[in-house]
């Protein structure tokens, strides 16, 4: 049967690339391991290998083509003896190619859609008005005035706009970190900022998180408003002394004389296929620290509105982003100055049978589960915490008083998790309303496996959420 060879992903976050060169032509017989083509992105070039054997039936994308989307069919592979005409009817979307990459950081299937899971780039939120007729109600956005129009933006663009707007507004705001200036950010969050604001306010640092976190804290003590970008929060472990002992405690320890208006931001949690040391979720770690504020947005609108609030906040703010969410698109209010208050949860959909509480990428599973549960007649209310410190437990409690059941969803580890805290709060403040034990869904209690199959098993899935909801609703 003819199969499509798909544009591979060079890294988990790659969305498109250039098909630089074909090393095979139509009619060539290839076997597993043969180099088929060269793929280029702005970061690297790699060779692309055949996984299956067969005959190149048709080349769909000619060499030199730029902007080829990941998973777009680029050629058709025929089985031995199959007629070339079968190439035209190739329907399977199963990837038939494999990638070989210098640093081995990612396998090509990392970003490929899975039959059970939605594609990464598909917006998980439907625009107002296009919601299915099921019992789904997206409550009116209370944070924007009536008649506000929306534009579609990725989380990446929303974060960039937030920083740019705040840098225009306040000359004391500046961005520093590894690769933020010339390279425009390791994940391209700071795109265009160097051009607009110059190298005094968009600063590439030497490679020491501990060093530049400390420098940022000192600059904040001196009255500037630094945004410190960590390439990922995994690297911020080296800087945690400066974050906690210096940034979080000095206002208190100086008797109120010296505050630290600083934002530490960057991707947090698992991406895809980056292994145990680059996949950690620090939400619960930072949420524990008095003196810090902690945000972890899900949507682009919240990413923008919360980041703007974080930059203006006189306290140190930990701003946890997610690499997989960077490329997702959402509706963002088209306003000159859109902010979201820190410490306020958001009800994404209302429901009556169960409250699902999540934040960050966990919201993806929560919302998908709610959709599927609706089809099965279970009405789930989905609460996005958005901020983890201060945490809007009031909204959660009010919701549970209505639904009497609660499932929490996060990617971090189970011990002393955000879900544990919510469970304790519910037990103390809504005990009489609970009709079932609260279930905390978390990542497995293991370092993140690098193997693709194990990684998938270590993370929370939509099915886990559905099963947990059925358990607490006794279905």
């Amino acid at each position: 049967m003819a199969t499509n060879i798909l544009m591979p992903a060079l890294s988990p976050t790659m969305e498109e690339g250039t098909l630089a060169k074909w090393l095979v032509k139509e009619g060539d017989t290839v076997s597993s391991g043969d180099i088929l083509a060269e793929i280029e992105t702005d970061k690297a070039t790699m060779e692309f290998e055949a996984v299956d054997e067969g005959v190149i039936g048709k080349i769909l994308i000619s060499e030199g083509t730029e902007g080829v989307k990941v998973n777009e069919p680029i050629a058709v592979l025929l089985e031995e003896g199959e007629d070339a005409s079968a190439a035209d009817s190739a329907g399977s979307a199963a990837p038939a190619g494999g990638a070989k990459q210098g640093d081995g950081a990612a396998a090509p299937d990392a970003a490929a859609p899975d039959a059970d899971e939605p594609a990464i780039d598909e917006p998980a939120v439907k625009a107002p008005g296009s919601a299915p007729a099921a019992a789904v109600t997206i409550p009116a956005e209370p944070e924007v005035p009536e008649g506000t129009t929306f534009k579609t933006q990725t989380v990446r663009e929303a974060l960039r706009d937030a920083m740019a707007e705040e840098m225009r507004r306040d000359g004391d705001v500046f961005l520093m970190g590894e690769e933020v200036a010339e390279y425009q950010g390791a994940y391209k969050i700071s795109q265009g900022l160097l051009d607009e604001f110059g190298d005094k306010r968009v600063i590439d640092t030497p490679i020491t998180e501990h060093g530049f976190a400390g420098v940022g804290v000192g600059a904040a003590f001196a009255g500037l408003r630094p945004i410190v970008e960590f390439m990922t929060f995994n690297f911020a472990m080296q800087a945690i002394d400066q974050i906690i002992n210096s940034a979080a405690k000095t206002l208190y320890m100086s008797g109120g004389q010296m505050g630290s208006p600083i934002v530490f931001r960057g991707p947090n949690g698992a991406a895809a296929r980056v292994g145990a040391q680059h996949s950690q979720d620090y939400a619960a770690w930072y949420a524990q620290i008095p003196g810090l504020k902690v945000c972890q947005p899900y949507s682009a609108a919240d990413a923008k509105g919360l980041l703007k609030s974080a930059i203006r906040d006189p306290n140190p703010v930990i701003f946890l982003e997610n690499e997989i969410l960077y490329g997702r698109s959402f509706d963002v209010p088209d306003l000159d100055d859109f902010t979201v208050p820190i410490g306020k949860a958001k009800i994404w959909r209302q429901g009556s049978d169960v409250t699902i509480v999540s934040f960050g990428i966990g919201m993806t599973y929560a919302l998908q589960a709610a959709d599927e549960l609706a089809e099965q007649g279970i009405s789930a209310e989905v609460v996005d915490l958005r901020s983890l410190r201060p945490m809007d437990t009031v909204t959660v409690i009010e919701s549970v008083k209505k639904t009497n059941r609660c499932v929490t969803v996060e990617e971090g580890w189970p011990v002393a998790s955000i879900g544990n805290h919510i469970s304790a709060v519910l037990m103390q403040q809504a005990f009489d309303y609970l009709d079932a034990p609260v279930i905390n869904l978390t990542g497995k209690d293991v370092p993140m496996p690098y193997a693709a199959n194990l990684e998938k098993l270590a993370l929370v899935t939509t099915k886990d959420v559905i099963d947990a909801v059925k358990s607490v609703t006794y279905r």
Partner: protein
Amino acid sequence: MPGTVETVASFSIRRTACLDADGRPLGPLPEFAADTDFLARLYRGMVLTRIFDEKAVALQRTGRLGTFASSLGQEAVAVGAASAMRPEDVLLPSFRDQGAQFWRGGTPEECLLYWGGSERGSRSAAAPEDFPICIPVGTQFPHAVGVATAFALRRQPRVALVMGGDGATSRGDFAEALVFAGVWTLPVVFVIANNQWAISVPRSQQCAAQTLAQKAIAAGIEGAQVDGNDVIAVHHACDRALDRARRGGGATLIEAVTYRITDHTTADDARRYRDDAEVSASWKREPVARLRNYLVAQGAWAKPDEERVLAECRATVEAAAEAYLAAEPEPATAMFDDLYAALPEDLQAQRAAVRERADG
């Protein structure tokens, strides 16, 4: 021999000293030393620090103060450095630099409040932009670089002066701060009081390098050693480094070689690990007598001057101790105050509960 071998970098570290251990000039003195009134002020600054330290240790020994770190023997480093600064510069002190804080307007009462456990002691009215005492070893160095970054971005002719000990130079923070100060050519002066001991670890066990000043070389900034028991030399070296930084010339690391005559803190007993003979020998090089000998030899100091300064400093310290002991204890709610610019709601509830318990 393969190819060619050539020297691509070489360096030397220079040491400045002005007075010998007995207070005799080692050569022509810096210009400012002609002003004996100014030298008398430096002398008073060191005496105040010594008397304060003595009182603070006494308060601790009688259960009226928390742990305290005396600077006995190294007063010249703090006073020499702070006296070279301008009021608009920013001081980032470590926990043994009260002499520098006093010179810049910090009061003995504030210092006692701090070591007594009240955060009010870190609220300096005279030098509100100076940093609170840094207890973590070394975190102050990158902070100073951050302050200097702010001065540079705002094009202000100000300098951050940060202090630490020999032990702190082994920290990553220190090395990292030097790296940033170098690549960004920032107005910051690092003053290391090398007092030979990091609690019980001697300088020789801290780093195999000949000097600590040469750590500057690897970061591409100026490095110099100075006799840290010679307040004239310390002031001179800091003055030059501050001036250079202020004019855009970048950072300097100054290693002031001194000696910690007393224990690391009141929680330490140095006799357990240190030779008495070493400590006795250090008394012959200590900074207060050295400057007094010089002033006396110049005819600029006599017994009445000495008695007056001692009496004034004792009175200042006694008054501070009385005010400290009479200070109202912090209310129970103080632990929440200043935690955030505005206390979040959930913490307001905790604060109210604590107050209720304390009142009840």
